[in-house]
């Protein structure tokens, strides 16, 4: 009759992990379903293909998890990524910088975009939605202006495309880009869970006023968090450009919603204060697997978005039911 006390930290920890594992169930269910539905689905090469497809949005989602946990939102990640790709092209092709320098500069440029967002949000005090919507339009425009509305190709650096495509496991076509995604996942999880940046992100998202009252310099940490997210945007931009061995000046609009959706599907609250990197990764994979599975099983394209929409609703609902019960 009496409930089990959870004072025991080990019990609590196990319970916590089980809960996170449970979020995986929707993902696994989808995987199993498509494995039966198509013989082409559960193959090494297709699974790697899914990971490749998840890489760019996934990296964006990782970075934006911090922003959302801190109670903000970043609509500029999609077009910001495009602009970072263009800047990679500018650095490498127009200015002829060496790859390492150009790539570093492009990633830092992403950080700069995030930094400006952070300033607008915390110093000017703009609502994050407006600040980053403005940035979304500005970066979309700048990408076109800077590139002269034409793709930039990496003629001088034919090796640049290896950054995404180089096979780390010879023979298996497991691309470096995916490996980078995995490494960044671990890094992001560590930063969110184990460092002061993560702690303040949760704290600000949970109660910004109280955090400020506790003597935390909220403005500075918000800028840090947006900048961090911007760095992930930079990496995503570089990898996207590498994958296409060209910097495409358009697109990106809509990616922000996809990334935010992945974060929210992963159980992070848009109210801020709650979330996890593990959830975000699972969320990204759910979207990627679903999209791929529907293509592999040749569901008519116009039906695909109907199915994706329904599955997202159901997956989040099931996840919430489980949390409630746990």
């Amino acid at each position: 009759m009496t409930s089990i006390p959870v004072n025991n930290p080990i019990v609590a920890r196990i319970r916590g992990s089980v809960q996170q594992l449970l979020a995986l169930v929707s993902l696994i269910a989808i995987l199993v379903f498509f494995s039966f539905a198509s013989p082409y689905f559960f193959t090494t090469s297709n699974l790697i293909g899914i990971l490749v497809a998840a890489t760019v949005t996934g990296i964006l989602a990782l970075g934006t998890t911090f922003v959302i946990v801190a109670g903000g939102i970043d609509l500029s990640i999609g077009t910001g990524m495009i602009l970072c790709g263009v800047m990679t092209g500018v650095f490498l092709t127009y200015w002829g910088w060496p790859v390492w320098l150009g790539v570093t500069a492009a990633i830092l440029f992403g950080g700069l975009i995030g930094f400006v967002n952070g300033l607008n949000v915390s110093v000017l005090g703009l609502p994050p939605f407006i600040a980053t919507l403005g940035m979304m339009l500005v970066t979309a425009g700048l990408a076109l202006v800077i590139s002269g509305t034409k793709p930039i190709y990496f003629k001088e650096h034919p090796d640049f495309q290896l950054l995404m495509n180089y096979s780390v496991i010879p023979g298996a076509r497991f691309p470096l880009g995916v490996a980078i995604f995995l490494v960044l996942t671990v890094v992001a999880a560590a930063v969110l869970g184990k460092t002061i940046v993560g702690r303040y992100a949760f704290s600000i998202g949970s109660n910004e006023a109280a955090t400020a009252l506790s003597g935390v310099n909220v403005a500075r940490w918000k800028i840090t968090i947006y900048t961090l997210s911007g760095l992930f945007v930079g990496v995503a931009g570089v990898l996207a450009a590498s994958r296409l061995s060209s910097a495409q000046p358009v697109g990106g609009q809509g990616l922000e919603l996809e990334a935010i959706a992945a974060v929210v599907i992963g159980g992070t609250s848009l109210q801020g204060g709650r979330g996890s990197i593990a959830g975000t990764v699972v969320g990204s994979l759910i979207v990627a697997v679903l999209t791929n599975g529907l293509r592999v099983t040749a569901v008519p394209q116009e039906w695909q978005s109907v199915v994706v929409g329904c599955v997202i609703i159901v997956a989040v609902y099931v996840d919430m039911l489980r949390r409630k019960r746990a």
Partner: protein
Amino acid sequence: ACSDAADKPGSGGGGGDKQPYVALISKGFQHQFWQAVKAGAEQAGKEFNVKVTFEGAKEEGNVEQQIQLLQTVIDKHPDAIGFAAIDSQAAAPLMTLAKNEKIPVVAFDSGVDSDVPVTTASTDNLAAAAEAAKHMAEAIGHEGKIALVIHDQTSVTGVQRRDGFVNYIKKNEPKIQIVDTQYSGDPLKATDLAKAIITANPDLKGIYGSNEGAAIGVVHAVQEKGMNGKLTIVGFDSGKDQIDAIKSGAMAGAITQNPVGIGYETVKAAVAVIKGQKVEKTIDTGFYWYDKSNVDDPKITAVLYQ
């Protein structure tokens, strides 16, 4: 449970030994133009008894999405791929991959800048746009101001349909001045945009719309401005609205490609390649100028879609 499926990976031959499988990856799928290409491809599929699938980027011009589609399709190992590249160079690594996997590629629509495709079934967009410019010049009496509404600022078709038109005017029509070029292929947005152009240029004589959406946007803009007949409109592609506008005289005429033919020829060429037959390096699917005088001509109606 999953291991059952894992036991039968897509080992080579793909579609197995029965029906050959041709996968088409286009630039888009939502617009009628692509639906017409798809119809042509499916018609050929039925005729030659091959399985045909047709997919395109959700947002036309989204290279990333298209590459994703191409990747998935290569993983399915079809017997041949039809590919309309949004950006050829961006697709180069996957073209190489297809070559390594020994999947023949047939390029369609605007061609793929690579030596992998065995043949290309396409329209010469530059020439087609120049043809539109020629008719525009004639209709406005070789002098005056005109403006362009281009459906896309960065895609190859957008750029070529703009540049082909602009270059023709520059070279041949010194008295014609292009005062503004703006971009949207969404009919509603194109309407508002064309209205603004007309507002800012009261002495405008003509507007060119570079695809169906842009062209009907221009038509509606002129209607809403109450300037029917005072402006010459030249369009591109077909669709019921555009055909009606031509019949009613609201639009001077338009260029049409042969989308059904593009789809048909692509699959036909793919089948030939699968069978080991030799195909021409290029297949010109042609373009046509149509206006009030020939819109009901059977040769034209055959290539129009409604």
